């Protein structure tokens, strides 16, 4: 695998994580809205499958792919629905949020270390 495709993959992951952060923030903000249903993004695995990254023409070297459309929202399976038909569980949302932040940290650190590798090979 080439370095540029690793960085491209990390970029898609970072965009997916920030799009997911919106969904989670929405759920937390609407914790007291009657009738609101909790939502989440489709898993990153599914997004990658839909993008068909194995095709070399689709790789990060080519034109910028439009992968924002692959980030589809799905309803979170409701654990408990309150009297006002609201299905948000604040604990679950906060847990997912901290998971998102730690994965984002992993992604940026991967970009950082591959970037270090590129500059090491340039400087010799």
């Amino acid at each position: 695998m080439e370095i540029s495709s690793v960085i491209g993959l990390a970029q898609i992951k970072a965009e997916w994580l920030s799009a997911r952060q919106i969904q989670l923030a929405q759920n937390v903000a609407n914790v007291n809205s009657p009738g609101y249903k909790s939502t989440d993004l489709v898993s990153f695995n599914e997004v990658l499958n839909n993008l068909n990254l194995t095709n070399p023409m689709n790789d990060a070297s080519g034109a910028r792919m439009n992968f924002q459309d692959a980030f589809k929202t799905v309803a979170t399976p409701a654990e408990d629905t309150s009297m006002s038909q609201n299905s948000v569980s604040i604990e679950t949302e906060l847990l997912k949020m901290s998971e998102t932040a730690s994965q984002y940290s992993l992604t940026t650190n991967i970009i950082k270390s591959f970037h270090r590798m590129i500059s090491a090979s340039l400087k010799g």
Partner: protein
Amino acid sequence: MSDPLIASMSVSSSGLSAQSLRMRVISENLANSQSTGASPGADPYRRKTITFGSTLDRVSGATTVSTQKIAHDPSNFAIEYQPGSPAANAAGYVKMPNVNSIIEMADMKEANRAYESNLQAVRQAREMVSMTIDLLRSGN
């Protein structure tokens, strides 16, 4: 479409302002828990309630929260015997506000928790932004 992390911070800030408005309504209720009417037989303060609803923010495409309406609690007033009060009717009874301080306290705790979780969401998004900015610092 604006930056998703900035948009998620604006969603959380709409949650913060909704919860602080809820706090205002709660403190209005608590402050007026003994406010009777001024003339004999007049109605006292009526407890206020607040309802939230989700609205689509067309700029960022995210779902924010807004105040749907501030309504009045239609439940009955408590009647107390206070012949000396200016609000007492001919028989000496005064209508007291329909505010239950235990319900208000429980509501206040819940508003507090919801505010805290929105604040945590803002903190998390800000941390993610600063991690991205840190990428620029690695080039040395």
